[in-house]
């Protein structure tokens, strides 16, 4: 963890997407507490007004950080959801406050924790990128761009079979 502090610049170059910070409320060192990687959204059919977003969030600060709300200029409502399958029944529950502990790397992926984008504002969906905003309990706001990925969602089961380096237990 301490290692990450000292080498944040190095770490940042290795990350897919680096996050913008709000200067006036930034931490002492000008360091953003959360780093967002691999932010994407599976492309939905044109007239479906709901979409899901996924990303990995890493807390590189020494204190817990909570994502308290989300928004997007493209959707009327955005929230973090968790898909659950309990006793053979599938449901989604809203996660009001998502806490990311110091050093934690939390992966949102299909079939579990996801960003739920509800009720699209425009007639057509963007085929390239989707902007969202994450509001944090420390007052910071993070702008994230979800890359829209065309093609069907891959089966996590197949991924598990073909890629043994990946573990599916994150966020459960």
């Amino acid at each position, binding site marked *: 963890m301490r290692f990450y502090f000292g080498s944040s610049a190095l770490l940042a170059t290795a990350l897919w997407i680096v996050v913008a910070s709000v200067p006036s409320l930034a931490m002492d060192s000008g360091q953003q507490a959360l780093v967002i990687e691999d932010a994407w959204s*599976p492309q*939905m*059919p*044109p*007239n*479906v*007004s*709901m*979409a*899901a977003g996924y990303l990995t969030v890493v807390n590189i600060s020494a204190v817990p950080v909570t994502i308290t709300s989300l928004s997007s200029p493209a959707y*009327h*409502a955005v929230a973090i*959801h968790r*898909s659950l*399958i309990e*006793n*053979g*029944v*599938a*449901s*989604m529950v809203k996660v009001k406050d998502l806490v990311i502990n110091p050093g934690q790397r939390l992966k949102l992926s*299909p*079939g579990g924790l*996801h960003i*739920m*984008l*509800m*009720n699209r504002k425009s007639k057509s969906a963007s085929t390239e990128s989707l902007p969202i905003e994450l509001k944090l309990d420390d007052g910071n706001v993070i702008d994230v761009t979800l890359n829209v990925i065309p093609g*069907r*969602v*891959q*089966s*996590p*089961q*197949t991924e598990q*079979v073909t890629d043994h380096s990946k573990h599916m237990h994150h966020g459960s």
Partner: protein
Amino acid sequence: MIRSAIAKLQIFFLSVAFFTCAAAFESPQSIDPARLVGEFQLEDQYGGSFGVEQFKGQWSMVFVGFTSCPDVCPVTLANLEAVRAEMGFRMSPERIPNIVFLAVDPDRDRSVLKDYLAYFHPQYVGITGREAEINKLIKSLGEFYRLDRKSVDEKNYNVTHTAIVSIINPEAKLVAKISPPFHPHKTGEYLIKLINEQMRLIDKG
């Protein structure tokens, strides 16, 4: 008084249903004796009528879902596709079950079902229709769903539904239930065995 008694009864039946589901969860269950699917009248994504007759002549896997489900439904469809791919290596194509997506949220599903399936899995059949007809099929399969909708104006409601998939044979009989996670190899193995056994029985008459 009567209303509360009915509510209690409903809760009782629900808990029985949940208990049964819990017992079946994760391991496939054969339905023995196989149960003929009851009458219902829905429409497929192209507007063609779809009733119990349409189950005849091929194997089907019926999955309950809704199109405003961007997270878990695409994952389940992808998992089921992986099961079919696994079966494809070891079984003749005409015995591999078709996927039938039973969309239980007609207010939102009707207008988008065709595009939704064309987008993800063009070869799948999607069916929906009037609530009463959906409920007939749901009941006949022993499944469950609920629209978590507070008013008719609400647009962002969720749908709670069974994640269990019904296996229907070419005589329109419910023969088994499979549960998530749909591991391609294990589920494929189970279905190949089940289907080959059943076909032997059907061929004997």
